[in-house]
């Protein structure tokens, strides 16, 4: 239940931050980018932390309270119990992410419309001015407004934004599953959380490190290559879920994803 209060506070914070930033930058496209950056930042942080912290204690708490015994004493296969717990955690994330996405899309749409109508007004005035002033159809503002309008249209709510949201959710799902798995044999909740974060960071950083290593002039020795493969086998590549940066910059998603 507390998650939803948290969510509420978080969205209020995003909104406040977004409104505040509008005082800093006049560039309309940038305003929308900031909105998206903030929201995706909040979403990623929420999903990552929630997927780890909330899942880490699901099973240990049931064991500690002996609720686990009453549940497993019913005709419930263990797999079902684990899967149910997992789905429960994921459902909270899914609902939160859905709410956040709807909020973001709505804000983004409203802001985009407002900015576009401002631009349209500006363009009309600029055109009138250009027609009245002799020898002055050269109007830099008109050019800029045209470019701005087309980039503004590309910055609104879109399916690719949804892809970023899906990627964030999928990442949370993988992370949640890993955490749940670790929590079944970990001796303490702290241990679980630490292991999960380590897996997360290794999975995120390893591909980048390897990449820059590979492209370095010295290259990689055979043994190091083996080591890298071993790390790759154990740790999932979380960079695969990192779409936000590209999507905010307006890249189109490759078909394979």
């Amino acid at each position: 239940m507390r998650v939803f209060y948290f969510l509420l506070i978080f969205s209020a914070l995003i909104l406040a931050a977004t409104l505040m930033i509008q005082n800093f930058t006049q560039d309309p496209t940038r305003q929308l980018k900031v909105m998206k950056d903030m929201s995706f930042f909040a979403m990623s942080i929420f999903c990552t932390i929630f997927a780890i912290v909330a899942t880490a204690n699901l099973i240990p708490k049931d064991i500690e309270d002996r609720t686990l015994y009453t549940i497993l004493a019913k005709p419930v296969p263990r797999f079902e119990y684990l899967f149910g717990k997992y789905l429960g955690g994921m459902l909270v994330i899914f609902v939160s992410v859905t709410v956040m996405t709807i909020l973001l899309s709505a804000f983004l749409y409203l802001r985009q419309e407002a900015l576009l109508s401002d631009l349209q007004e500006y363009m009309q005035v600029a055109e009138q001015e250009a027609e009245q002033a002799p020898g002055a159809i050269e109007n830099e503002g008109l050019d800029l407004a045209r470019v701005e309008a087309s980039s503004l249209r590309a910055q609104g709510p879109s399916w690719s934004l949804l892809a970023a949201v899906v990627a964030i959710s999928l990442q949370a799902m993988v992370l949640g599953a890993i955490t749940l798995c670790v929590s079944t044999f970990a001796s303490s909740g702290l241990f679980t959380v630490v292991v999960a974060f380590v897996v997360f960071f290794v999975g995120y950083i390893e591909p980048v490190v390897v990449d820059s290593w590979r492209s370095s002039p010295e290259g990689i020795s055979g043994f190091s290559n083996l080591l890298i493969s071993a790390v790759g086998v154990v740790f999932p590549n979380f960079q695969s879920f990192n779409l936000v940066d590209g999507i905010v910059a307006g890249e189109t998603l490759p078909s394979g994803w």
Partner: protein
Amino acid sequence: MTSKRWLAVLLLIVFGAVRMPFEQRIEAGLKAAHFREGVTVPDDSMREQLGQLGAAAALGGFRSFLATMFELQATTAYANKDYEKVSKHYLLATQLHPREAGYWEMAGWMMGFNAVAYYLGEETEGKYSTAMRVNLARKSVDEALRFLENGLRYVPNDYGINRNLGNLLVRKKGDFCGAAEAFGRAADSMDGPSLAQRHHVYNLAYCPGQEEEAYSKLKALGKFFKGGPNPLPDERIPPAFLFHIRYFEKLFDIPAEDRFKSLLDLGALYEKLRRNFEVGQQYEKRHVLNMQRLEDVLDIPKSNRIPFGKKSLRPLQGGAN
């Protein structure tokens, strides 16, 4: 117990081995679609600026967010007229999110125009020696150029970067050929006729060796002005267009019937502009060239021409000053 543990390890390895090709394919796809630009291990200087947490965040999918934060700091630094910081923060923003054209564009604008105006303006008068102020201004123009040119490596067809580059080259470097190229790219990024297109042609008109191309492009512009269902009335033909095309018509000895038809009086324009001219004032190179071209077109005798000298040029116009 132990056999179960081995089974778990085995499963992990098998799953990992199955997973890896998929991950590699996704990674290759994302790389090809520019999703990975800016994702690198931060070098020492960058890490120092980002801090440990920032470096981790940069790798952890928050590059876009961090870049936004740095741009915000750059804006604050701009408000405080601390251009060293402006440049530093934009450097971070562009490194973190190189495919976001806006950062390159703004960085180029800030360093190429705002910083230069500050260093050459009244605020720094007396604070530094003139030579030093010019030097600082020149350095920041170079920085701006670096930003814009680096930006073009990531987003070559961006309107904003190319427009700023064109403006910078012509106004702070006196480089008309380079500016023509940049405005050309900016015009190509837009649909239909644009001011960028005209800037491309006007700058080309001052680029040595490009006279024929400049003339043919001017002719095309003329067709655009006078052709179509709504030809422009004479008084709305841009004067810059007119004196450029007249110059080339004269240069190439174009017969009268093939010349651009316009009754606009360039002489009146010249007289008006000339009244605003003051000896001892400094002008941008493009303005000086415009006046000289008008004089050429109007056949003003040498003795009557505006006495432009080396001192008439502002700093950073491609000259030695």
